[in-house]
């Protein structure tokens, strides 16, 4: 196990290094568009530009500049926005809670619905509940979250007028009721897809587990169905779904980009998009680094957790 841990750690560090290299290269390879030079304005003389370039070390070779940038990043300095002159780290700290709340709530709701739906439809596989659940989840999987969001807005905001289409952001700590009410539509749009994916995976694993000998034994001994389903079968069937949940945590970070844009929520995703559209490249670079880095780290943790939890994999390796 220790060897796998070491190998995984090396792999993680290599991937993170590549992520940082890509983020850095994106900005530094764009010719003539260096954000710091824009601070001088259009009327700058060539000498002033040359002085500033030398002072900022922009003429140094690529590895040297990368090393310096990486040093800053590791100390938490991601540079400053060229449009608002705000610290990129501060921007991220301010917007991250919004994205995290959105991702956490949609996953929690996804699990809340997926577990009972998956268990019931596997238990009565082929029955009417199962047929409805299976075909609905198949249809939902063909609906990208932004289409679900549009339909929800049409129904609940445009037609019924019961929920806001573009809610103002109110932090949970300030006014929990307004915060949750405003998040009903965005969270539903994200959660429906989660429910569909998780239900499908849990259902198919449950069906496999229910065929196993030990379940037959438990039934033969006359254990109550509920006990067999929830205490014997469910834990064994949960594994792949939990791995998927882990991957969804990472996926939700990027999925939130679209949902935040539709509902005008000022999270990381919308910030990234606005930065792209206003060509605020320092912010783009910082956000790509942070989001991609978080995604990679979460995925590795999930992979490790999976190996730790599942005795079958542990033995095989």
């Amino acid at each position: 196990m220790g060897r796998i841990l070491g190998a995984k750690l090396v792999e993680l560090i290599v991937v993170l290094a590549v992520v940082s290299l890509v983020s850095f290269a994106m900005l530094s390879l764009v010719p003539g568009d260096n954000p710091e030079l824009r601070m001088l304005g259009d009327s700058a003389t060539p000498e002033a530009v040359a002085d500033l370039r030398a002072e900022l070390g922009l003429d140094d070779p690529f590895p040297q500049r990368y090393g310096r940038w990486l040093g800053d990043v590791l100390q938490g300095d991601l540079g400053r926005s060229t449009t608002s002159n705000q610290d990129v780290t501060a921007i991220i700290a301010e917007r991250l809670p919004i994205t995290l709340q959105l991702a956490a709530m949609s996953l929690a709701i996804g699990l809340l619905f997926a577990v009972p739906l998956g268990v019931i439809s596997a238990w009565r596989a082929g029955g009417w509940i199962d047929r409805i659940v299976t075909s609905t989840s198949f249809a939902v999987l063909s609906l990208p979250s932004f289409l679900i969001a549009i339909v929800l807005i049409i129904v609940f905001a445009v037609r019924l007028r019961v929920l806001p289409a573009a809610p103002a952001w109110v932090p949970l700590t300030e006014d929990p009721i307004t915060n949750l009410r405003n998040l009903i539509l965005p969270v539903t749009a994200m959660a429906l897809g989660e429910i569909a994916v998780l239900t499908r995976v849990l259902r198919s694993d449950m069906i496999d587990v229910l065929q196993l000998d030990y379940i037959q034994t438990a039934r033969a001994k006359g254990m109550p169905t509920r006990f067999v389903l929830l205490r014997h079968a469910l834990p064994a069937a949960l594994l792949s779904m939990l791995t998927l949940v882990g991957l969804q945590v990472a996926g939700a970070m990027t999925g939130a980009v679209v949902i935040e844009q539709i509902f005008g929520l000022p999270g990381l995703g919308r910030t990234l998009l606005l930065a792209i559209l206003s060509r605020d490249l320092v912010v783009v670079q910082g956000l790509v680094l942070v989001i991609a880095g978080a995604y990679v780290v979460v995925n590795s943790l999930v992979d490790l957790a999976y190996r730790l939890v599942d005795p079958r994999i542990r033995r095989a390796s």
Partner: protein
Amino acid sequence: MRAEPTNEVDEPVAPDHPRRGSAAGTLGTLFWLAVAWLVLVVATAVFAGLLPLPDPTRISPGRKYLPIGSDGHLLGTDQLGRDILARVAEGARISMFISLLTVAVGITVGGVVGTTVGYVGGRIEKAAMALVNMALSFPSLILLLGVIAFAGQSLRNIVLVFCVLAIPGYIRFARASTLTLKERDWVLASRMIGAKDRRIVFRVLLPDVLVTLITFGLLAIGAVIVAEGVIAFLGVGVPPPTATWGQMIADGQRDFDDDVIHTALIPATAMFLTILSLNLVGDGLRRRLQVREAQI
């Protein structure tokens, strides 16, 4: 079910596939409805220029927000008075072009590289798979947005980025299929009679690997359509005046204030039906060919 190896040792007849023509009626009505919709979309995409439709970019402010079924505008007009049917047709063209090209490039390049690497094995395989795993551990939407931000929005850049993002997945898939195939009798027999490596890769392994990749590819087309829809919706897709489904939906969302919903709902429905149909057909074909998901 397995076809017995014939005399042509190096070109076996699709070994693991059920006999063609059996169970013809089991695909179901839904499958054929999905096929019909896809045929309609592809035909519209191919013949959009020949159809008697108005110019999708022609603006007529006096005729904006015409409802569905208006005279001369079957699906109505949008916020600038442009014909929605013509724009949906052009959107189909863009979606189909980008997704088919991406998947075709992915299957070809990924198939050849994955099969070769899987067959050769050893250090080359290890190195290639390390690269592939690294590429796959990147969040693709973020990478896509980042690259487009720096490289600029254009059809060419979008297709390029999509292809680059698609290839690693196919390499992994093709390698996995190759590993299971290369120990089979007929492959060993080809080696025994002295067939050259190149012949084994291209004539023996690749045809079977490609069949697997193509069934997977149908589902992948849907995924590319979603990805293209997302970036167009976010305003970083193929730039206007070209109509794309994602961008039409984004424009339509702004009409909600005027209580107009059909401008967003029509392209959204077109997109949903297309993805649903691709999933239905892909799923049906995959079951038919018994390609197990576990192989991915």
